[in-house]
Protein backbone atom coordinates (compact mmCIF):
# COMPACT_ATOMS: atom_id res chain seq x y z
CA UNK A 1 0.00 0.00 0.00
CA UNK A 2 1.38 3.38 -0.95
CA UNK A 3 0.70 6.48 1.05
CA UNK A 4 0.01 10.09 0.49
CA UNK A 5 3.15 12.09 1.35
CA UNK A 6 1.01 14.55 3.30
CA UNK A 7 -0.30 11.75 5.54
CA UNK A 8 3.18 10.45 6.20
CA UNK A 9 4.55 13.86 7.06
CA UNK A 10 1.53 14.48 9.31
CA UNK A 11 2.28 11.34 11.32
CA UNK A 12 5.96 12.19 11.51
CA UNK A 13 5.18 15.71 12.67
CA UNK A 14 2.81 14.39 15.34
CA UNK A 15 5.65 12.35 16.78
CA UNK A 16 8.51 14.80 16.39
CA UNK A 17 6.83 18.13 17.10
CA UNK A 18 3.59 17.40 18.95
CA UNK A 19 4.89 14.74 21.34
CA UNK A 20 2.56 11.97 20.19
CA UNK A 21 3.34 8.92 22.25
CA UNK A 22 1.87 5.79 23.66
CA UNK A 23 1.76 6.68 27.33
CA UNK A 24 1.82 3.21 28.76
CA UNK A 25 1.74 -0.48 28.02
CA UNK A 26 0.44 -2.01 31.21
CA UNK A 27 0.48 -5.74 31.78
CA UNK A 28 -2.20 -7.00 34.12
CA UNK A 29 -1.17 -10.08 36.08
CA UNK A 30 -3.47 -12.14 38.27
CA UNK A 31 -1.94 -13.03 41.63
CA UNK A 32 -4.97 -14.97 42.79
CA UNK A 33 -2.92 -18.16 43.01
CA UNK A 34 -0.25 -16.61 45.26
CA UNK A 35 -2.05 -16.80 48.61
CA UNK A 36 -0.42 -18.73 51.50
CA UNK A 37 -0.68 -18.74 55.28
CA UNK A 38 2.99 -17.77 55.58
CA UNK A 39 3.51 -14.22 54.32
CA UNK A 40 7.12 -14.99 53.33
CA UNK A 41 5.86 -17.69 50.97
CA UNK A 42 3.19 -15.34 49.58
CA UNK A 43 5.84 -12.67 48.96
CA UNK A 44 8.08 -15.17 47.17
CA UNK A 45 5.20 -16.43 45.02
CA UNK A 46 4.28 -12.87 44.07
CA UNK A 47 7.87 -12.09 43.13
CA UNK A 48 8.30 -15.26 41.09
CA UNK A 49 5.03 -14.90 39.19
CA UNK A 50 5.60 -11.27 38.22
CA UNK A 51 9.16 -11.97 37.10
CA UNK A 52 8.00 -14.89 35.00
CA UNK A 53 4.96 -13.28 33.37
CA UNK A 54 6.49 -9.85 32.74
CA UNK A 55 9.98 -11.03 31.82
CA UNK A 56 9.72 -9.77 28.21
CA UNK A 57 7.40 -6.81 28.75
CA UNK A 58 9.99 -4.03 28.68
CA UNK A 59 11.95 -5.56 25.78
CA UNK A 60 8.74 -5.94 23.74
CA UNK A 61 7.84 -2.32 24.37
CA UNK A 62 11.31 -1.19 23.33
CA UNK A 63 11.22 -3.31 20.16
CA UNK A 64 7.88 -1.82 19.15
CA UNK A 65 9.24 1.64 19.80
CA UNK A 66 12.11 1.03 17.38
CA UNK A 67 9.94 -0.55 14.69
CA UNK A 68 7.05 1.89 14.73
CA UNK A 69 9.11 4.96 15.52
CA UNK A 70 6.67 6.13 18.19
CA UNK A 71 7.82 6.61 21.79
CA UNK A 72 6.29 4.23 24.32
CA UNK A 73 6.91 6.16 27.50
CA UNK A 74 6.03 3.69 30.24
CA UNK A 75 5.93 -0.03 30.71
CA UNK A 76 3.98 -0.95 33.81
CA UNK A 77 2.34 -3.77 35.70
CA UNK A 78 -0.99 -4.01 37.48
CA UNK A 79 -1.81 -6.89 39.81
CA UNK A 80 -4.75 -8.36 41.69
CA UNK A 81 -5.62 -6.18 44.69
CA UNK A 82 -3.14 -7.27 47.35
CA UNK A 83 -5.88 -7.23 50.02
CA UNK A 84 -7.19 -10.39 48.34
CA UNK A 85 -3.79 -11.99 47.80
CA UNK A 86 -2.70 -11.30 51.37
CA UNK A 87 -5.96 -12.34 52.98
CA UNK A 88 -4.89 -15.95 53.55
CA UNK A 89 -1.74 -14.88 55.43
CA UNK A 90 -1.52 -15.14 59.19
CA UNK A 91 0.35 -11.83 59.28
CA UNK A 92 -1.45 -8.50 59.77
CA UNK A 93 1.21 -6.32 58.20
CA UNK A 94 1.30 -6.48 54.38
CA UNK A 95 4.41 -4.30 53.92
CA UNK A 96 6.49 -7.38 52.92
CA UNK A 97 4.06 -7.91 50.03
CA UNK A 98 4.57 -4.32 48.86
CA UNK A 99 8.32 -4.91 49.05
CA UNK A 100 7.93 -8.06 46.94
CA UNK A 101 6.03 -6.02 44.31
CA UNK A 102 8.72 -3.33 44.36
CA UNK A 103 11.53 -5.83 43.99
CA UNK A 104 9.80 -7.75 41.17
CA UNK A 105 8.90 -4.56 39.28
CA UNK A 106 12.52 -3.40 39.48
CA UNK A 107 13.77 -6.82 38.37
CA UNK A 108 11.71 -6.73 35.17
CA UNK A 109 12.49 -3.04 34.59
CA UNK A 110 9.04 -1.42 34.67
CA UNK A 111 8.66 2.05 36.15
CA UNK A 112 5.51 1.54 38.26
CA UNK A 113 3.50 -1.36 39.62
CA UNK A 114 -0.07 -0.86 40.77
CA UNK A 115 -2.32 -3.03 42.88
CA UNK A 116 -1.43 -2.47 46.52
CA UNK A 117 -5.16 -2.00 46.69
CA UNK A 118 -8.39 -2.76 48.49
CA UNK A 119 -11.99 -2.51 47.33
CA UNK A 120 -14.19 -1.61 50.29
CA UNK A 121 -17.19 -0.01 48.60
CA UNK A 122 -19.56 -1.68 51.03
CA UNK A 123 -17.32 -2.80 53.88
CA UNK A 124 -14.04 -4.35 54.96
CA UNK A 125 -12.76 -7.90 55.01
CA UNK A 126 -9.81 -8.85 57.22
CA UNK A 127 -7.44 -8.46 54.26
CA UNK A 128 -8.83 -5.02 53.41
CA UNK A 129 -8.24 -3.78 56.96
CA UNK A 130 -4.69 -5.11 57.03
CA UNK A 131 -3.86 -3.67 53.66
CA UNK A 132 -5.19 -0.18 54.34
CA UNK A 133 -3.35 -0.07 57.69
CA UNK A 134 -0.12 -1.01 55.85
CA UNK A 135 -0.39 1.69 53.15
CA UNK A 136 1.60 4.57 54.78
CA UNK A 137 4.56 2.34 55.62
CA UNK A 138 4.37 0.44 52.32
CA UNK A 139 4.53 3.66 50.28
CA UNK A 140 7.41 4.95 52.39
CA UNK A 141 9.64 1.88 52.08
CA UNK A 142 9.01 1.15 48.40
CA UNK A 143 9.80 3.29 45.36
CA UNK A 144 7.52 2.27 42.52
CA UNK A 145 4.54 0.58 44.18
CA UNK A 146 1.22 2.37 43.72
CA UNK A 147 -1.76 1.97 45.98
CA UNK A 148 -5.48 2.57 45.53
CA UNK A 149 -8.56 2.13 47.67
CA UNK A 150 -12.09 2.08 46.31
CA UNK A 151 -14.49 3.53 48.88
CA UNK A 152 -17.74 3.57 46.94
CA UNK A 153 -19.67 2.92 43.77
CA UNK A 154 -23.00 3.63 42.14
CA UNK A 155 -24.10 0.08 42.97
CA UNK A 156 -22.93 0.04 46.59
CA UNK A 157 -23.13 3.60 47.84
CA UNK A 158 -20.24 5.13 49.78
CA UNK A 159 -18.46 3.49 52.69
CA UNK A 160 -18.11 6.49 55.01
CA UNK A 161 -15.98 4.54 57.51
CA UNK A 162 -13.46 4.05 54.71
CA UNK A 163 -13.77 7.70 53.66
CA UNK A 164 -12.91 8.72 57.23
CA UNK A 165 -10.04 6.27 57.42
CA UNK A 166 -8.54 7.31 54.05
CA UNK A 167 -8.31 10.93 55.22
CA UNK A 168 -6.19 9.64 58.11
CA UNK A 169 -4.17 7.30 55.88
CA UNK A 170 -3.33 10.16 53.49
CA UNK A 171 -2.13 12.26 56.45
CA UNK A 172 -0.03 9.37 57.74
CA UNK A 173 1.43 8.67 54.30
CA UNK A 174 2.39 12.37 54.06
CA UNK A 175 4.03 12.37 57.49
CA UNK A 176 5.86 9.11 56.80
CA UNK A 177 7.39 10.66 53.64
CA UNK A 178 7.63 14.23 54.95
CA UNK A 179 11.34 14.33 54.09
CA UNK A 180 10.46 13.78 50.41
CA UNK A 181 7.60 16.32 50.11
CA UNK A 182 5.01 13.64 50.94
CA UNK A 183 5.78 11.61 47.81
CA UNK A 184 3.88 8.68 49.38
CA UNK A 185 0.61 10.50 48.70
CA UNK A 186 1.45 10.87 45.00
CA UNK A 187 1.29 7.07 44.79
CA UNK A 188 -2.09 6.73 46.52
CA UNK A 189 -5.53 7.12 44.95
CA UNK A 190 -8.98 6.93 46.54
CA UNK A 191 -11.65 5.84 44.07
CA UNK A 192 -15.37 5.74 43.59
CA UNK A 193 -16.45 3.36 40.80
CA UNK A 194 -12.90 2.01 40.45
CA UNK A 195 -12.06 0.60 37.03
CA UNK A 196 -10.65 -2.93 36.82
CA UNK A 197 -8.70 -2.49 33.58
CA UNK A 198 -7.17 0.96 33.98
CA UNK A 199 -3.60 1.06 32.60
CA UNK A 200 -2.73 4.42 34.19
CA UNK A 201 -1.02 4.95 37.54
CA UNK A 202 -1.39 5.38 40.37
CA UNK A 203 -4.83 3.78 40.19
CA UNK A 204 -4.12 0.66 38.11
CA UNK A 205 -4.99 -2.75 39.49
CA UNK A 206 -5.90 -6.05 37.86
CA UNK A 207 -9.55 -6.63 38.70
CA UNK A 208 -11.11 -9.96 39.59
CA UNK A 209 -12.97 -10.15 36.28
CA UNK A 210 -9.71 -9.95 34.32
CA UNK A 211 -7.88 -12.93 32.75
CA UNK A 212 -4.60 -14.50 33.94
CA UNK A 213 -2.58 -11.87 32.09
CA UNK A 214 -3.65 -9.04 29.80
CA UNK A 215 -2.20 -6.07 27.93
CA UNK A 216 -3.93 -2.70 28.36
CA UNK A 217 -2.64 0.38 26.60
CA UNK A 218 -3.07 4.05 27.44
CA UNK A 219 -2.64 6.51 24.61
CA UNK A 220 -1.96 10.18 24.91
CA UNK A 221 -1.46 13.23 22.75
CA UNK A 222 -2.62 16.59 24.16
CA UNK A 223 0.01 18.26 21.98
CA UNK A 224 -1.40 16.69 18.81
CA UNK A 225 -4.93 17.86 19.65
CA UNK A 226 -3.73 21.38 20.42
CA UNK A 227 -1.81 21.55 17.15
CA UNK A 228 -4.83 20.35 15.15
CA UNK A 229 -7.01 23.00 16.81
CA UNK A 230 -4.60 25.76 15.81
CA UNK A 231 -5.79 25.18 12.23
CA UNK A 232 -9.47 25.86 13.06
CA UNK A 233 -9.17 29.10 15.02
CA UNK A 234 -11.99 30.67 13.02
CA UNK A 235 -14.34 27.68 13.20
CA UNK A 236 -17.41 27.30 15.42
CA UNK A 237 -17.46 24.90 18.36
CA UNK A 238 -18.90 22.10 16.22
CA UNK A 239 -15.83 22.30 14.02
CA UNK A 240 -13.62 22.22 17.11
CA UNK A 241 -15.36 19.04 18.33
CA UNK A 242 -15.04 17.47 14.89
CA UNK A 243 -11.32 18.27 14.74
CA UNK A 244 -10.76 16.73 18.18
CA UNK A 245 -12.65 13.59 17.10
CA UNK A 246 -10.57 13.13 13.98
CA UNK A 247 -7.35 13.65 15.90
CA UNK A 248 -8.41 11.27 18.68
CA UNK A 249 -9.16 8.66 16.04
CA UNK A 250 -5.64 8.85 14.65
CA UNK A 251 -4.00 8.81 18.07
CA UNK A 252 -6.05 5.82 19.15
CA UNK A 253 -5.21 3.85 16.01
CA UNK A 254 -1.56 3.99 17.03
CA UNK A 255 -2.47 2.70 20.50
CA UNK A 256 -4.55 -0.09 19.03
CA UNK A 257 -1.66 -1.16 16.81
CA UNK A 258 0.79 -1.16 19.73
CA UNK A 259 -1.63 -3.02 22.01
CA UNK A 260 -2.42 -5.76 19.48
CA UNK A 261 1.20 -6.25 18.58
CA UNK A 262 2.41 -6.24 22.19
CA UNK A 263 -0.25 -8.77 23.20
CA UNK A 264 0.67 -11.03 20.28
CA UNK A 265 4.39 -10.92 21.03
CA UNK A 266 3.86 -11.50 24.74
CA UNK A 267 1.50 -14.36 23.96
CA UNK A 268 -1.32 -12.89 25.96
CA UNK A 269 -4.68 -11.24 25.53
CA UNK A 270 -5.26 -7.67 24.35
CA UNK A 271 -7.54 -6.12 26.96
CA UNK A 272 -8.46 -2.53 26.23
CA UNK A 273 -7.30 0.81 24.93
CA UNK A 274 -7.77 3.64 27.38
CA UNK A 275 -8.71 6.70 25.31
CA UNK A 276 -7.17 9.34 27.45
CA UNK A 277 -5.53 12.68 26.95
CA UNK A 278 -2.83 12.27 29.55
CA UNK A 279 -0.66 15.35 29.97
CA UNK A 280 2.95 15.55 31.16
CA UNK A 281 4.75 18.54 32.67
CA UNK A 282 6.62 19.01 29.35
CA UNK A 283 5.80 22.10 27.32
CA UNK A 284 3.34 21.26 24.54
CA UNK A 285 1.83 18.29 26.36
CA UNK A 286 -0.91 20.03 28.33
CA UNK A 287 -4.69 19.51 28.49
CA UNK A 288 -5.10 23.01 29.98
CA UNK A 289 -3.45 24.49 26.90
CA UNK A 290 -6.06 22.74 24.71
CA UNK A 291 -8.83 24.42 26.71
CA UNK A 292 -7.05 27.74 26.32
CA UNK A 293 -6.57 27.16 22.58
CA UNK A 294 -10.35 26.71 22.29
CA UNK A 295 -10.88 30.14 23.79
CA UNK A 296 -10.33 30.43 27.54
CA UNK A 297 -7.99 33.12 28.82
CA UNK A 298 -6.90 30.75 31.57
CA UNK A 299 -8.06 27.30 32.59
CA UNK A 300 -10.29 27.74 35.62
CA UNK A 301 -12.20 30.76 34.31
CA UNK A 302 -15.97 30.54 33.67
CA UNK A 303 -16.52 28.32 30.64
CA UNK A 304 -13.86 25.81 31.68
CA UNK A 305 -16.33 23.07 32.61
CA UNK A 306 -18.26 23.35 29.33
CA UNK A 307 -15.08 23.36 27.26
CA UNK A 308 -13.73 20.34 29.11
CA UNK A 309 -17.04 18.48 28.73
CA UNK A 310 -16.93 18.97 24.97
CA UNK A 311 -13.26 17.95 24.78
CA UNK A 312 -13.80 14.83 26.87
CA UNK A 313 -16.78 13.71 24.81
CA UNK A 314 -15.10 14.36 21.46
CA UNK A 315 -12.02 12.35 22.51
CA UNK A 316 -14.26 9.37 23.30
CA UNK A 317 -16.28 9.65 20.10
CA UNK A 318 -13.14 9.80 17.98
CA UNK A 319 -11.42 6.99 19.80
CA UNK A 320 -14.33 4.56 19.94
CA UNK A 321 -14.23 3.54 16.31
CA UNK A 322 -10.45 3.39 16.25
CA UNK A 323 -10.21 0.54 18.72
CA UNK A 324 -11.97 -2.80 18.95
CA UNK A 325 -11.99 -2.71 22.76
CA UNK A 326 -12.21 0.48 24.72
CA UNK A 327 -12.11 0.63 28.50
CA UNK A 328 -10.14 1.98 31.42
CA UNK A 329 -10.79 5.57 32.37
CA UNK A 330 -11.06 6.95 28.82
CA UNK A 331 -11.28 10.72 28.95
CA UNK A 332 -9.21 13.80 29.52
CA UNK A 333 -7.05 13.78 32.63
CA UNK A 334 -6.66 16.94 34.68
CA UNK A 335 -3.81 16.27 37.09
CA UNK A 336 -2.51 19.57 38.38
CA UNK A 337 1.18 18.86 38.96
CA UNK A 338 1.56 16.90 35.72
CA UNK A 339 0.27 19.62 33.39
CA UNK A 340 2.21 22.83 32.71
CA UNK A 341 -0.99 24.73 31.82
CA UNK A 342 -2.79 23.64 34.99
CA UNK A 343 0.20 24.62 37.12
CA UNK A 344 0.27 28.06 35.50
CA UNK A 345 -3.51 28.47 36.03
CA UNK A 346 -3.13 27.72 39.76
CA UNK A 347 -0.15 30.07 40.01
CA UNK A 348 -2.06 32.96 38.45
CA UNK A 349 -4.90 32.37 40.92
CA UNK A 350 -7.46 31.35 38.30
CA UNK A 351 -7.84 27.66 39.12
CA UNK A 352 -9.22 26.69 42.53
CA UNK A 353 -10.01 23.41 44.22
CA UNK A 354 -13.73 24.11 43.86
CA UNK A 355 -13.42 24.69 40.11
CA UNK A 356 -11.37 21.53 39.80
CA UNK A 357 -14.17 19.67 41.57
CA UNK A 358 -16.67 20.99 39.01
CA UNK A 359 -14.36 19.92 36.20
CA UNK A 360 -14.24 16.36 37.55
CA UNK A 361 -17.98 16.06 36.90
CA UNK A 362 -17.36 16.07 33.16
CA UNK A 363 -14.02 14.37 32.61
CA UNK A 364 -12.30 11.17 33.59
CA UNK A 365 -10.96 10.66 37.08
CA UNK A 366 -10.98 13.50 39.58
CA UNK A 367 -8.96 15.67 41.94
CA UNK A 368 -5.59 14.48 40.79
CA UNK A 369 -2.09 15.37 41.97
CA UNK A 370 -3.16 18.39 43.94
CA UNK A 371 -0.81 19.66 46.65
CA UNK A 372 -2.65 21.15 49.64
CA UNK A 373 -1.41 22.77 52.86
CA UNK A 374 0.19 20.31 55.28
CA UNK A 375 -2.00 21.48 58.14
CA UNK A 376 -5.22 20.44 56.39
CA UNK A 377 -7.05 18.15 58.83
CA UNK A 378 -7.74 14.48 58.14
CA UNK A 379 -11.48 15.14 58.37
CA UNK A 380 -11.29 17.89 55.75
CA UNK A 381 -9.44 15.53 53.41
CA UNK A 382 -12.09 12.90 54.12
CA UNK A 383 -14.81 15.40 53.33
CA UNK A 384 -13.16 16.26 50.01
CA UNK A 385 -13.03 12.51 49.27
CA UNK A 386 -16.72 12.21 50.19
CA UNK A 387 -17.69 15.05 47.83
CA UNK A 388 -15.72 13.56 44.99
CA UNK A 389 -17.08 10.05 45.62
CA UNK A 390 -20.62 11.46 45.63
CA UNK A 391 -20.05 12.99 42.18
CA UNK A 392 -18.91 9.59 40.94
CA UNK A 393 -21.72 7.67 42.61
CA UNK A 394 -24.53 9.87 41.36
CA UNK A 395 -23.14 10.37 37.85
CA UNK A 396 -22.23 6.71 37.38
CA UNK A 397 -18.63 7.56 36.58
CA UNK A 398 -15.20 6.98 38.02
CA UNK A 399 -13.91 9.68 40.32
CA UNK A 400 -10.70 9.70 42.28
CA UNK A 401 -8.80 11.76 44.78
CA UNK A 402 -5.03 12.03 44.88
CA UNK A 403 -4.26 14.85 47.30
CA UNK A 404 -0.87 15.62 48.77
CA UNK A 405 -0.97 17.47 52.11
CA UNK A 406 2.66 18.56 52.18
CA UNK A 407 3.97 18.77 55.77
CA UNK A 408 5.35 22.17 56.69
CA UNK A 409 4.15 23.85 53.51
CA UNK A 410 1.27 26.22 52.88
CA UNK A 411 -0.36 28.30 50.14
CA UNK A 412 2.33 30.11 48.17
CA UNK A 413 4.86 27.29 48.50
CA UNK A 414 5.71 24.89 45.69
CA UNK A 415 6.41 21.21 45.85
CA UNK A 416 8.62 19.29 43.41
CA UNK A 417 8.02 15.58 42.76
CA UNK A 418 10.24 15.22 39.72
CA UNK A 419 9.83 13.30 36.47
CA UNK A 420 6.32 12.56 35.21
CA UNK A 421 4.83 13.56 38.57
CA UNK A 422 5.93 17.15 37.98
CA UNK A 423 5.67 20.01 40.46
CA UNK A 424 2.77 21.87 42.01
CA UNK A 425 1.97 25.10 43.77
CA UNK A 426 0.07 24.44 47.03
CA UNK A 427 -3.62 25.18 46.51
CA UNK A 428 -5.93 26.70 49.15
CA UNK A 429 -8.47 24.49 50.92
CA UNK A 430 -11.72 25.65 52.51
CA UNK A 431 -11.12 24.80 56.16
CA UNK A 432 -14.60 25.15 57.64
CA UNK A 433 -15.11 21.89 59.45
CA UNK A 434 -17.00 18.79 58.32
CA UNK A 435 -15.72 16.92 61.36
CA UNK A 436 -19.17 15.98 62.67
CA UNK A 437 -20.35 14.67 59.28
CA UNK A 438 -17.20 12.59 58.81
CA UNK A 439 -17.18 11.20 62.35
CA UNK A 440 -20.68 9.76 61.90
CA UNK A 441 -19.27 6.88 59.82
CA UNK A 442 -21.58 4.27 58.33
CA UNK A 443 -22.59 4.00 54.72
CA UNK A 444 -24.32 6.32 52.26
CA UNK A 445 -27.02 4.13 50.70
CA UNK A 446 -26.77 3.30 47.00
CA UNK A 447 -28.60 5.93 44.94
CA UNK A 448 -31.85 5.42 43.07
CA UNK A 449 -30.00 5.22 39.80
CA UNK A 450 -28.30 2.01 40.93
CA UNK A 451 -31.67 0.25 40.76
CA UNK A 452 -31.62 -0.31 37.02
CA UNK A 453 -32.72 -3.96 36.89
Amino acid at each position, binding site marked *: *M*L*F*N*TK*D*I*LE*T*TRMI*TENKLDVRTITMGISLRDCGHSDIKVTAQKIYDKICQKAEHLVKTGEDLE*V*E*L*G*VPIINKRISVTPISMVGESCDANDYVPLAQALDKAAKAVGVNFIGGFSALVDKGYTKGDRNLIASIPEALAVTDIVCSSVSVGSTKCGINMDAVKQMGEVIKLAAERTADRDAIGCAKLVVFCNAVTDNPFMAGAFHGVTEPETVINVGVSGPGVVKNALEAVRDGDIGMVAETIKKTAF*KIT*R*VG*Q*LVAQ*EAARRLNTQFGIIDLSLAPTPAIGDSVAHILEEIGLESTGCPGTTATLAMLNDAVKKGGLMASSYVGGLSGAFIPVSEDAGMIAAVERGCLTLEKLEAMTCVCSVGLDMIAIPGDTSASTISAIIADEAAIGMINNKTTAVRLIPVPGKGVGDTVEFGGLLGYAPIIAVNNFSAEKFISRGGRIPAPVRSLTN
Partner: protein
Amino acid sequence: MRVVLTIIGKDKVGIIAGVSNTLAECNINIININQNIMQGFFNMVLIGDMSEATVSLQEAKEKMHALGAKIGVEIRMQSEEIFTAMHRV
Protein backbone atom coordinates in the same frame (compact mmCIF):
# COMPACT_ATOMS: atom_id res chain seq x y z
CA MET B 1 8.45 -5.81 6.49
CA ARG B 2 8.04 -2.58 4.58
CA VAL B 3 9.51 0.59 6.01
CA VAL B 4 8.84 4.25 5.45
CA LEU B 5 11.76 6.70 5.46
CA THR B 6 11.07 10.37 5.84
CA ILE B 7 13.95 12.68 5.05
CA ILE B 8 13.65 16.36 5.86
CA GLY B 9 16.31 19.06 5.78
CA LYS B 10 18.01 21.84 3.87
CA ASP B 11 18.38 20.92 0.21
CA LYS B 12 21.85 20.04 -1.10
CA VAL B 13 23.51 17.81 -3.66
CA GLY B 14 23.68 14.10 -2.89
CA ILE B 15 20.87 13.43 -0.40
CA ILE B 16 19.10 10.84 -2.54
CA ALA B 17 22.44 9.33 -3.54
CA GLY B 18 23.48 8.97 0.09
CA VAL B 19 20.20 7.44 1.19
CA SER B 20 19.93 5.01 -1.71
CA ASN B 21 23.56 3.93 -1.31
CA THR B 22 23.02 3.16 2.35
CA LEU B 23 19.83 1.24 1.54
CA ALA B 24 21.73 -0.76 -1.09
CA GLU B 25 24.43 -1.62 1.48
CA CYS B 26 21.65 -3.05 3.69
CA ASN B 27 20.00 -4.80 0.73
CA ILE B 28 16.79 -2.86 1.24
CA ASN B 29 14.85 -2.52 -2.02
CA ILE B 30 13.27 0.82 -2.87
CA ILE B 31 9.59 0.51 -3.81
CA ASN B 32 8.57 4.15 -4.07
CA ILE B 33 10.12 7.58 -3.77
CA ASN B 34 8.26 10.83 -3.48
CA GLN B 35 10.41 13.93 -3.25
CA ASN B 36 10.06 17.65 -3.55
CA ILE B 37 11.72 20.91 -2.59
CA MET B 38 9.62 23.45 -0.73
CA GLN B 39 11.13 26.86 0.02
CA GLY B 40 14.62 25.43 -0.09
CA PHE B 41 13.70 22.52 2.13
CA PHE B 42 14.09 18.99 0.99
CA ASN B 43 11.18 16.61 1.72
CA MET B 44 11.32 12.97 0.76
CA VAL B 45 9.21 9.96 1.60
CA LEU B 46 10.65 6.63 0.57
CA ILE B 47 9.11 3.21 0.96
CA GLY B 48 11.50 0.29 1.17
CA ASP B 49 11.15 -3.47 1.37
CA MET B 50 13.20 -5.13 4.13
CA SER B 51 12.27 -8.74 3.32
CA GLU B 52 15.77 -9.45 1.91
CA ALA B 53 17.60 -7.02 4.18
CA THR B 54 20.97 -8.06 5.58
CA VAL B 55 20.59 -5.94 8.72
CA SER B 56 17.94 -5.47 11.40
CA LEU B 57 15.69 -2.42 11.45
CA GLN B 58 17.61 -1.14 14.47
CA GLU B 59 20.93 -1.40 12.61
CA ALA B 60 19.47 0.21 9.49
CA LYS B 61 18.12 3.06 11.61
CA GLU B 62 21.55 3.60 13.16
CA LYS B 63 23.17 3.75 9.71
CA MET B 64 20.55 6.24 8.54
CA HIS B 65 20.99 8.31 11.67
CA ALA B 66 24.74 8.49 11.05
CA LEU B 67 24.17 9.41 7.41
CA GLY B 68 21.65 12.08 8.40
CA ALA B 69 24.15 13.62 10.81
CA LYS B 70 26.83 13.57 8.09
CA ILE B 71 24.82 15.26 5.37
CA GLY B 72 22.77 17.51 7.65
CA VAL B 73 19.24 16.14 7.18
CA GLU B 74 16.86 14.37 9.52
CA ILE B 75 16.10 10.79 8.54
CA ARG B 76 13.39 8.76 10.26
CA MET B 77 12.74 5.12 9.52
CA GLN B 78 9.59 3.36 10.69
CA SER B 79 7.57 0.27 9.93
CA GLU B 80 4.78 1.18 7.50
CA GLU B 81 2.26 -0.32 9.94
CA ILE B 82 1.94 2.89 11.94
CA PHE B 83 0.93 4.80 8.79
CA THR B 84 -1.52 2.09 7.76
CA ALA B 85 -3.09 2.20 11.22
CA MET B 86 -3.42 5.95 11.25
CA HIS B 87 -4.48 6.69 7.70
CA ARG B 88 -6.42 3.64 6.50
CA VAL B 89 -9.71 2.52 8.04
